[in-house]
């Protein structure tokens, strides 16, 4: 997926001795000095270097002092009293991003020379930089701001006129550019060329007048464009969607998954006071590296759509009225039992988590209902991250034996019309009408229970509507299209009375069958790991923040660490 992975050595096991700030340690041969410092809990500040992009060495922030072993007349290193090589320090600083470690190399990350180098670069970068941190979206995440506190001098000795450049440039559908803030690190250009495979961005003019831009008339509308906002070390590239929303330090961060397709990109949900403000990619080399698509990133505004279902709805005399959860669960339980199990059909959406599906599975087993399937949701596959499967948990639903990917479902419309199916329970907010069941067929049903997120034609036809939590509002796990089991944690509570599906199902089960053994995600996992072969030996804790590759999945992850 990435053309480069500079944070991984060619051979992690080929260890050599290097000295970092006076301490000898072992590091993989050839790993660059920025990464070596990082692994030794030191820090070398940098702007242009990005582990997933080509190294250009233009910012000069990562300059460090380098030494090599002093050689004796026998052409062997001269050893000091500690048995380690004596080091000859070079007068000229080197860039950490482009220097791989060699045996006996000495590295100084905080000598007087190194400090002077950083000081100098900071002063240079700031002379033409506008002083508008107070209105800059990047404040709090800006490396220029951060490093100027650490490595700057505070005072400016620059009394000349600053170079003027375009501000507030409409770079594309989703991105605004402030050229005066740009420090010309070229990360965005390299991202769009090397990862995005499109040369949209470039520098025009020369020297101090160099300016980032796209060709007039060719906008930067790449489907992954917003990643450049993440990797821009300053506030030059900003997301129109997030601009002026919120100071980033107020945001609460929750680890979650993007559920807009089957890839399951790892994300961080940024929220404040119950409102989600942004989704950003969370690094996972086995899935999405540090990237995510713009579609998935921006697909969260529905969370506060005016169509959100916030209260249970009960149908009476052809109309829906708000009701209490107790009444709704009661009515739903009655409905499930009203028709014979073999006359019931259940849409076990592949948008539900494994935990939710598992509780559902229990319930159906207890009820004796066997007609269950998911609904196919086609996504727009691309050659990078996006999967053609629009459902985030198709594999999970399959592994739990609840879905055939919609093959069975495709016959249900006729079966309703012919009277074979008299009751339908739809989960996960699936709108079954576009999926193939006609409105007139729905009208024929004796029982239609729908648990969903947004109002749609299906919820409007339902006898009972159960308002459910959306992905950022719940905790659970999913299995992505490559067979990786991953988990998400709740960032915000659902609106109004909306509840997580697994709770809805737990209560429904209790009302239907009295079964109530599953009270928490952990409970569910205990049971799942025993009953679902693919999950054997697995637990909530074991999944961890980065997920696990399931043995049972034959599909390998595509060349991510290549």
């Amino acid at each position, binding site marked *: 997926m990435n053309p480069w992975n500079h944070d991984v050595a060619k051979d992690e096991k080929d260890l050599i001795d290097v000295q970092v700030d006076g301490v000898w340690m072992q590091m993989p041969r050839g790993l660059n000095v920025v990464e070596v410092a990082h692994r030794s809990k030191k820090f070398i500040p940098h702007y242009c270097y990005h582990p997933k992009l080509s190294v250009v060495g233009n*910012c*000069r922030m990562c300059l460090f002092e380098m030494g090599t072993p002093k050689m004796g007349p026998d052409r062997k290193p001269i050893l000091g009293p500690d048995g380690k090589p004596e080091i000859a320090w070079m007068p000229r600083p080197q860039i950490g991003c482009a220097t791989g470690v060699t045996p006996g190399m000495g590295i100084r990350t905080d000598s007087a020379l190194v400090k002077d180098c950083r000081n100098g670069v900071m002063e240079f970068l700031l002379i033409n930089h506008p002083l508008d941190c107070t209105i800059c979206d990047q404040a709090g995440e800006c490396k220029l701001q951060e490093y100027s506190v650490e490595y700057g001098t505070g005072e400016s000795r620059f009394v000349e006129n600053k170079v003027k450049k375009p501000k507030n440039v409409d770079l594309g559908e989703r991105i605004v550019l402030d050229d005066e803030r740009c420090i010309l690190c070229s990360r965005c250009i390299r991202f769009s060329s090397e990862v995005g495979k499109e040369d949209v961005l470039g520098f025009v003019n020369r020297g101090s007048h160099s300016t980032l831009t796209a060709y007039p008339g060719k906008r930067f509308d790449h489907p992954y464009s917003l990643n450049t906002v993440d990797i821009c070390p300053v506030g030059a590239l900003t997301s129109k969607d997030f601009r002026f929303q919120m100071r980033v330090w107020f945001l609460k961060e929750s680890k979650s998954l993007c559920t807009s397709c089957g890839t399951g990109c790892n994300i961080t949900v940024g929220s404040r006071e119950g409102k989600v403000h942004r989704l950003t990619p969370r690094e996972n080399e086995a899935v999405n590296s540090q990237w995510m698509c713009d579609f998935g990133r921006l697909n969260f505004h529905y969370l506060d759509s005016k169509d959100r279902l916030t209260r249970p709805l009960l149908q009476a005399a052809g109309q829906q009225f708000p009701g209490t959860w107790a009444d709704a669960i009661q009515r739903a339980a009655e409905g499930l039992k009203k028709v014979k199990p073999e006359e019931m059909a259940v849409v076990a959406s592949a948008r539900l988590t494994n935990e939710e599906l598992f509780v559902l599975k229990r319930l159906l087993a207890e009820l004796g209902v066997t007609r269950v399937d998911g609904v196919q949701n086609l996504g727009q596959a691309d050659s990078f991250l996006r999967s053609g499967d629009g459902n985030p948990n198709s594999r999970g639903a399959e592994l739990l034996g609840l879905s055939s990917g919609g093959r069975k479902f495709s016959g249900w419309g006729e079966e309703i019309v012919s009277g074979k199916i008299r009751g339908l329970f739809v989960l996960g907010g699936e709108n079954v009408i576009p999926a193939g069941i006609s409105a007139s067929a729905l009208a024929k049903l004796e029982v239609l229970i729908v648990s969903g997120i947004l109002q749609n034609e299906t919820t409007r036809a339902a006898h009972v509507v159960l308002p459910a939590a959306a992905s950022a509002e719940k905790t659970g796990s999913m299995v992505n299209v490559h067979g990786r089991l991953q988990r998400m944690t709740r960032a915000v509570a659902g609106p109004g009375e909306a509840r997580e599906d697994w709770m809805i199902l737990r209560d429904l089960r209790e009302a239907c069958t009295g079964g109530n053994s599953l009270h928490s995600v952990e409970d569910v996992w205990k049971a799942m790991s025993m009953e679902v072969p693919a999950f054997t030996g697995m637990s909530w804790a074991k999944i961890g923040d980065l997920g696990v590759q399931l043995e049972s999945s034959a599909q390998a992850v595509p060349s991510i660490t290549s």
Partner: protein
Amino acid sequence: MAISEQRLIFKHIDAPGYTRDMECYLKHGGYEMLKKGLAMGPSAIRDEVKKSQLRGRGGAGFPTGTKWSFIDPSKATKPIYLICNADESEPGTFKDRQIIYKDPHQLLEGMILSCFANGVKLAYLYIRCEFTFGHKVLEKAIQEAKAAGFLGKNILKSGYDLEIYVHRGAGAYICGEETGLIESLEGKRAYPRIKPPYFPAVLGLYMSPTIVNNVETLCNVKHIVEMGGDAYAKIGRPNNTGTRLLCVSGDVVKPGYYEFPCGGITLGQLIYGVCGGIRNGRRLKAVIPGGSSAKVLRAGEVFKVKEKDAQGNMVDREVKLEDLRMDFDSLAAAGSMAGSGGVIVMDDTRDMVECLANISTFYAHESCGQCTPCREGVLWLKKILARIAEGHGRDSDPGLLKDVADRIAGRTICAFGEAAAWPVQSFIGKFKEEIQLRIRRNGTAAKRDTISLTH
């Protein structure tokens, strides 16, 4: 006190009746060395070049034989390229122009020999486009050479094929820097590459092994083949072998281009003897000995130079400016460099602020803008100097100029950083009183002449 030139490369240049046509070149023994070289074979030529101790004439003075030895044609898995650097853009330098315009076949012969020696089948001649006629001269010379079988397929029936194409720059000084040149030749902005890892010998043009040599360097190869490496090494001084083309400009009576054995002439002999002294009866104030990037030398300076004595022991010797030998090691020992051979002379009426502001304007204009210290620092230097030149200097300016320059040199992607910082460091170091005085008098002293042209 007349010192006579030893013309090797300039042998025929400006000689009456000598033209740039191949016919004329052949009449003067042209392409005989190509025949000789083809018979010698590649490794023999490489050996002779190594023995000659030839050092590159483009600026850095890197030994050509060593540069070539980084490339092993017998082991190369990718094609090897050679690029002739005819960008000649270092201020004060105008020697390559003479060769290109007046004796293009000499360059071609040297280039073909060098390509043959290194297994090169495709070579480019990168010429600055301000030589508006030069590229046509070269194109014609290439056509003539091809027609005569000296170039192209199966050269002189030796089985060796070589294509040389002329590629024109577009007015950017940084294209003289070899990796900037390579990027430019690849059709990109001339952003110099980081070294490591992009050493031309390994990851050069199209990420293949590449040799970049200056015009004069390549011409020398022809003469090395002619006289043999050992004989060539006897010209000049140890480690500073061969002849050197010197370009003198500025305030001398007879500016121009000259050729002497390397180190066979002193700075004083050059200025006062060869060039007729300082013009208008004035006195020397300052001289830049190796292109505008070299550190300035002040009249009256005395340098401590380490030298080998007759017994081979290292001894300190005091050398006056006038007695500095015009070779790589002597000028380096004096804290400057032989660089590209461009000697710029300033007389005692010249205002050092104006001169330095002019130089810094050049670098501010030419910075490619890729790396932070150079992009930001060099324009800053220019702005400060322009301000002083306009009569708005501040007492803190000399210190600030030095600080800024110190934070550029040694910290950039390419040697342009030093090229831009050295003039500032050396002018501030050597003419501090004058600059301070200029600042104190801000605006009150009438300007004698406007040289800064900071526009």
